[in-house]
């Protein structure tokens, strides 16, 4: 029962993180807060993936000497999501680093972290003339 609740709670948290992140990324003007919001989306998805491998009362998916293979197969958590999330975290960190570096450069250029000020300073920014 506790296990089911744990998984459900984690899934709800993942959903909340994604929604809060989307809200921040789309609606908040401050660049740093926007980047934090984007990070929330990434982490929400990571949490969702981690939840997939959860097994109530399960064991760490490492096969040790002396373990019965049938028992291990029935009781170990699913290791694939953990491996995937590890890679996903690395990708998220790289993306975050590049975005923060860009934020620093643009702050020096504009003296502001307002996204609307940075991205709309010229009418042709990404649009037709």
């Amino acid at each position: 029962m506790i296990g089911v609740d744990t998984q459900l709670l984690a899934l709800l948290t993942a959903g909340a993180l994604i929604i809060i992140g989307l809200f921040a990324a789309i609606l908040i003007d401050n660049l740093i807060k926007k980047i934090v919001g984007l990070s929330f989306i990434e982490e929400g998805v990571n949490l969702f993936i981690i939840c997939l491998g959860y097994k109530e009362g399960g064991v760490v998916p490492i096969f040790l000497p002396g373990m019965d293979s049938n028992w291990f197969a029935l009781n170990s958590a699913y290791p694939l999501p953990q491996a995937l999330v590890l890679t996903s975290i690395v990708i998220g960190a790289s993306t975050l680093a590049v975005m923060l570096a860009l934020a620093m450069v643009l702050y020096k250029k504009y003296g502001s972290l307002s996204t609307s000020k940075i991205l709309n300073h010229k009418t042709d920014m990404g649009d037709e003339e």
Partner: protein
Amino acid sequence: MNAMIPLIVIIPIIAALLLNLFGKNNKTIKVIAFIVGIILPILTLITGYGLHYFGGHQPLSLSNISGLPSYISSTGLYNLHPAITYNFTSLSKVFIFMMGIVVFLSIFAYLNSEKRASGPFLFLVFMGTASVSAMMMSDDLFNMYVFFEIAALIQTGIIIASKAEDNYETALKYMIIGSIGGPILLLGIAILLAIAGSVNITDIVNIVNTSLIRSPQTRPIVLFSFGLIFFGWLYASGFPPFHVIKSSIYSKAEPYAASVLQGMSLLTLVAFAVVMFRIFGKLNLFKGAVLLISIMAMVLGVSMAVMQTDFRRMIAYLSVGELGFVGLGFGLGTRFSITAGLFQGINELIVTALLFIGLGAVVYLTNTSNTRRLGGLISKNESMAIMVLLGGFAMAGVPPFNGFRSKFMIIEAALNSGFPEISVIAILVSIATFFVFVKAFYSIYLKPQPTDLEFVHETIPRSMVFAVAVLLIICIVLGLYPGLVTNPIAELIGGLL
């Protein structure tokens, strides 16, 4: 097992690392980039079709292991792919080979035009090539996602490395959109993992098509997953509503980089389109959504190109419009239409690279891409001007070039599938493309030269002329002998259907 297959990804990655390492030694990086640039297409050409299981972990059903527990041998686990698998098919070969040619010619033109080559820029080009090659071959959705994210970072890096005005702003905008698109794609993949238990595409296709898509409980989840992956695909390919930022990216990059960037977007589009078709192809929603978005891309691409006075942005919008033709092939969903769409993809890869490099020569001469400030450039290099004009004809679908063949096939496929309206739209878009291009050509090359036009260089580098000439020859050869590409692709698509 084919050990040559992973080399197609490993060699450009090693080259990229070496280029970064020797970034300050101009001669060394020029030699490395040139040699690896030649090796890549050759390696792709000589590598045989087949599968590569990383770590040698093939499905248990192929391993002949005896004494397995019944929960493995008597269930679907027996056939699952336990490791990342690369599948090198005729489709991968054709696309990676053509990408290799475009990368080589772009690098060749770059190395000969610039006195001092940039190690980090070449690093980005080779990493990007490795990423899209991996996406084309990977039979693992998560592996594709990893390279998809690497490709997105590379594209941002290329924009940051360019000298264009507002490049940082464009890069930031692209990263913000990408940081939403990427995780949404990953969420779609995670949902497939949740319901299928694997990220291997062949496994997912088997499980989804045999049971999940038919069950009323799991069908909505499959549809939801499709929606998320479709969103990620739109972002990666530059389809609407992401066509503006994608065009912006192309126009901010250096001409050599823009030709590689459009190739990266195109290969990503094709790789994910094939995967989506395999997994979700039986959903009516798939065909409807792809058709709708493709028509939107065609119409928006060409109508926004009309308004541009910056020819780099004009080519960028035209290339987005051309992507719509590729999407049409998948949306119609027949063997003939998909073959036509993929053939159009190859043609677009070549033609857009030709135009970016060819018109890049104008930027090299004048340091401007504004058609209002240009004119009379045909006197600088007539042969280049004529080749660019012929490239524009190829894009618009004028016979006997390759674009004509593929567009004709797509129009025929639309008629055969009972969509004459789509054929009419396709013809109108082609005509509009022709007029947009001819208008730009007149402004750049034929109208009287403005008196205030200043030249930063007096002649076009021969390497640029050579690159454009080779690409034009490929356009003509594919126009005369389309079977070189369509026959192997049609065979593979027949197998998928």
